[in-house]
């Protein structure tokens, strides 16, 4: 029985990791766009991004999730009712969870990418412009490789926080590691055992990520020193 319950908890790890990876992709893309927005010379754009990151980082993740899972559909449905439509909106929980986590962590990624972008040596970009490289080529060949190296420590940190933050979706009914652990704990009356297994899963995930990203950082450092990028 123990093995069966332990297995259902660990099997839900695929959902946890899929959720975290999906949110990471969204957070990275959105975060990079926001970072450019924050560095923009257009005042209104900068202010807008500043306001966005302040609001997201000023509200607990749990409250933001409750807002997206419960308040947002309620607001949309109130509006639909007011317009006289019979439509009824309900968000699929998995996508809502991924979207919320992605948006939350885009605010953190924005800060990481912003300082990385500011630390790319000016001369490299100027040299690329002097060679008449197309802006898109400059982005892929100069900016992005430098950004990857400079932003990696902050990126790693954000990823570790993100993996742990996914545990909150269990409170909203998504069947992740934590949700299954709760199920097993209630079914067997051995909460400590099964929450410990869940904790072990998250610890393993963060430790593996830390070592993998550390190895990647070392590699990027080496290629940079060899002058290959």
């Amino acid at each position: 029985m123990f093995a069966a319950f332990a297995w259902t908890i660990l099997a839900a790890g695929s959902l946890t990791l899929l959720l975290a990876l999906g949110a990471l992709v969204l957070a990275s893309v959105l975060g990079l766009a926001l970072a450019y927005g924050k560095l923009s010379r257009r005042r209104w754009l900068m202010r807008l991004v500043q306001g966005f990151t302040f609001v997201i980082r000023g509200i607990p993740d749990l409250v933001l999730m409750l807002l997206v899972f419960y308040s947002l559909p309620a607001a949309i449905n109130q509006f639909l009712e007011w317009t006289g439509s019979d439509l009824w909106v309900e968000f699929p929980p998995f996508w809502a969870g991924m979207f919320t986590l992605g948006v939350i962590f885009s605010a953190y990624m924005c800060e990481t990418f912003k300082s990385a972008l500011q630390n790319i040596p000016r001369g490299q970009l100027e040299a690329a412009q002097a060679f008449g490289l197309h802006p898109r080529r400059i982005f892929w060949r100069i900016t992005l490789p430098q950004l990857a190296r400079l932003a990696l420590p902050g990126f790693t940190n954000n990823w570790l926080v993100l993996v742990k933050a996914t545990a909150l979706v269990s409170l909203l009914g998504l069947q992740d590691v934590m949700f299954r652990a709760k199920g097993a704990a209630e079914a067997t009356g051995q909460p400590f055992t099964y929450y410990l297994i869940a904790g072990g899963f998250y610890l393993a995930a963060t430790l593996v990520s830390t070592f993998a990203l550390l190895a990647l950082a070392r590699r990027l450092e080496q290629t940079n020193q060899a002058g290959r990028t």
Partner: protein
Amino acid sequence: MNWDVVVENLRLYAQGAGLTIWLTLLSLSAAFLLALPLAFLRNSRSRFLRRSVIAYTTVFRGTPLLVQLFLVYFGLAQFELLRGSFLWPWLSSPLVCALLVFVLNSGAYTTEIFAGGLRTIPKGEIEAAQAYGFTPLRAALRIFIPGMLSRSLPLYGNEMIMLMHATSLASTVTLMEITGVARNITLNYYIQLEPYVAAALIYLALTAILVAAVQLAERRFANFLRLDH
């Protein structure tokens, strides 16, 4: 819209905000006192002490706070021995469990922040203290601790905000802080939008106050570290 529901329950929100602030301040103070000696042990020359502190910070920073909270609040009931002991009246109280977990969790993050601050104290200051014949206690009080605190202020400020947001998880163990109050109102009145928005606004205001306080402290205590003046 149902904003009058929020207005009617302003008293509850005020009590909730009071509990949030109380939980935050109490956990922060205890975590600070825990992290102060641990930061020194984290940099200790004894491998055993260093490794023990690293094990503690790794486990508490590598698992979600929600798992830790559930392990303590629901998990400890699994042990017959504990349930019969004189500690049980405390360990079965959600308030004590939440505080215990917040202190241990924040203590782990704060230890790493302070230990990092200690490592960046210039060698010259330490040598100067030795040259003046400071006793270890005097050196700690006059050189290490002030240097460590002023250098960790930006990261420590972040940790204070993180902890304040983390207290929202106390609502999952029945505590009526801001999030718990909002959750209760949504359940009692069958409205999903306004209670959570109100909670978010309170957190936003508290965060803004905390950010301003940290900035003030930075200007007062860490101004000498800034390069641009």
